[in-house]
């Protein structure tokens, strides 16, 4: 056989490849037409998906609803409190008692500022923090 014929070479290599293939699978003894996913794998997958989806549900529905509710509540609370504190200061000026109420007003204003800071901190660090789904 002349190796100069490229077509012939292809035939030889194809035949040899077929022989190799047959020898590879020659000892294949069993045949199984059913290849369903094992129930343990399905159950485990379902369990993890359910836990993640539940966590996501709580995040999306509950926490967002809570965030909106708390935001509105704290916003109103801080607004009302500031109005009241400044009202108190203005009333004291009108009554001429600001000098006498200096300590009380100082404490109330400081308290209000600290409260505002703490509420803002709670909102940022707790209410609006990302949920770590890894624990689910």
């Amino acid at each position: 056989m002349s190796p100069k014929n490229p077509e012939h070479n292809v035939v030889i290599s194809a035949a040899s490849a077929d022989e190799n293939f047959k020898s590879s699978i020659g000892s294949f003894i069993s045949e199984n037409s059913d290849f369903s996913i094992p129930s343990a794998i399905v159950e485990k997958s379902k369990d993890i998906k359910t836990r993640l989806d539940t966590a996501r549900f709580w995040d999306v529905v509950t926490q967002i609803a809570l965030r909106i509710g708390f935001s509105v509540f704290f916003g109103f609370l801080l607004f009302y409190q500031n109005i009241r504190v400044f009202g108190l200061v203005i009333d004291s000026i009108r009554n001429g008692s600001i000098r006498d109420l200096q300590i009380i007003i100082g404490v109330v204003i400081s308290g209000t500022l600290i409260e505002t800071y703490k509420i803002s901190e709670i909102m940022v660090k707790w209410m609006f923090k990302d949920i770590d789904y890894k624990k689910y």
Partner: protein
Amino acid sequence: MAILSKDQILSIESSAQDVLLSVFDNLDSVQPPIDIFKILKKYNLKLQVGRFKEENIAGAYKRLDNTIFVNSDDPYPRQVFTIAHELGHHFLHNDKNEEVFLRTALTKLDGQNSPQESEANWFAASLLMPKKLILKYWELTHDVEKISAIFGVSPTAVYFRLKNLQLL
């Protein structure tokens, strides 16, 4: 080393998506783990599960007989990836009449194979771990083990899928 071009990747992803669509009708209804047996039935492909003469063979494919062979000694996640890989050859490489998938190739999912093997691996990954679904679960849990349990594939397959999608 075979690195696939962006066009090749898009084409393979689209082929895998088409196969899923043809079997499950609506991609939104596809839930992991993907039932590979449904795909085999849809395309009249026969599956033989048994032992190969050589231990290092994970699977094989013979176009003429429409048959995929898979090693019965392998765990399910490896078997399902092997079948999906052979499906890749079936759908992508019409010129390929026979193929033997070696066990060693399963550990080289990062493209250190021939172009056709890399394409088949990419197809297998996108068939078993559709992009939309893996992105969803990766966003929820950055945990490879959990994602592998969700998709019923090996953590290695998940790791390379995430790496190939540039999420790792």
